[in-house]
């Protein structure tokens, strides 16, 4: 599989290593691949404005939104 190189600011790399993957078995690369996959999956499942409005109406009827 072809791969590309992406430059990551060092402070972000350190933060990810420190906060997220320090205690897990994931590599930095795998962690970022997982994040992107997740984001793509969410985009694929995205919904229309009309559907979101319906949910808002129902949340209003539950008393959660004004």
């Amino acid at each position: 599989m072809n791969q590309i190189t992406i430059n990551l600011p060092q402070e972000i790399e350190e933060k990810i290593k420190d906060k997220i993957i320090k205690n897990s078995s994931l590599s930095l690369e795998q962690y970022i691949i997982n994040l992107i996959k997740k984001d793509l999956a969410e985009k694929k499942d995205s919904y229309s404005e009309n559907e979101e409005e319906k949910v808002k109406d129902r949340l209003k009827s539950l008393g959660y939104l004004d």
Partner: protein
Amino acid sequence: MLNKFKNWLNSRKSKKNVILIALDGVRLDQFREFTYFKQLSSKGTLFSNMITYSPHSITSFHAIFTGLYGNHSGVNSYFGTLNFKKEECKTLTQYLKEKGYYCLGDSMNELVIPKQGFDKLVIQEEFTEFIDNHKQLLNETADKNKEGKPVFLHLHCSYLHNKVVQGIIKPFKGKEIEYHQKPLENEKRYQTYLEEINQYLQKIILEIEKNKLWENSLIIFFSDHGNSLGEKIGEVAYGNFCYDYSLKTFALFINGGYPVTEIKQMVRNVDLTPTILDILSINSDSSKLPFNGESFQNLILNKKIEPRVAFSQTGGMTGPYPSPKSPNVHSIRTDKWKLIYYQVPDNFELFDLEEDPLEKKNLFDQGLMQVEKKMRSLLAEQIEH
């Protein structure tokens, strides 16, 4: 041939109804001494330490019905039903429907429970009386049984939701500190609301007796989340944080012959569907997403199960860092320890639940490095599954 027919007939006769009665927002620590709940507790096995995947109804009910955490099923937020992976999940209702059950029930709102598999699902009109409808659904269950059909029935008792919205969420909006300063008043108010649930139970018990449903049904009373009584600033009800006052729920299993006992070992609400299927000897469907939950039937049978780890998430409608479309508070919990991670403002809390069940003393960064390491690792596994 005749024997085969007799076996088939017997298997149909012995199929029990499954009746779920959801007591929305009920905290067991506040409700356990109420008359009709005590009466019910003397009929079965009470799981008093059941942890919800998420402390509000939409996410919690989807976790119950799918046996999946919301980051697997897609329903991980107030807006989560828009992302429900209905083709990849198989709900409890669908399993039972496939086994010949007639599936009916009600829910307080279109968003709250997955509709898949229901033959009839009544949506309550907002803030209206529903007890007559519940009686009607119990009568319908008995009628279906007379036709030889087992029934899966779901009843949603939403009194408390309605009361909390009208009596707490709306009037205390923007007044979280005031709410936090009056815990006794909050408790008294909540107890008043619970009395209505007590009266509801009285009526439901009578209706179950009238229809002779105790004998031929597995009946489970449960709650989907708890409620704040002002324990922490920033939350007047539920949904903003992952503290035990809103994560702790219960399930009371009543099924002829089940031991009358209380089980305090931690279980999770994602375990409910796998447990019910296990009780009914129904196998899970390998073509669908595998359950995050596991059966705890062995605890009812007085056998041991391995201690479990409970994962929870939420993103508040209100509170200090609202996030209604995506969870931003995550927790991981064993019987002893709980780690909470706040994506915003990016910090942790660690609690020793055995020594500090009210989660008052944050032990994070206090030298418990091995515990922190283990709990962070467990949490990372769940978040980045």
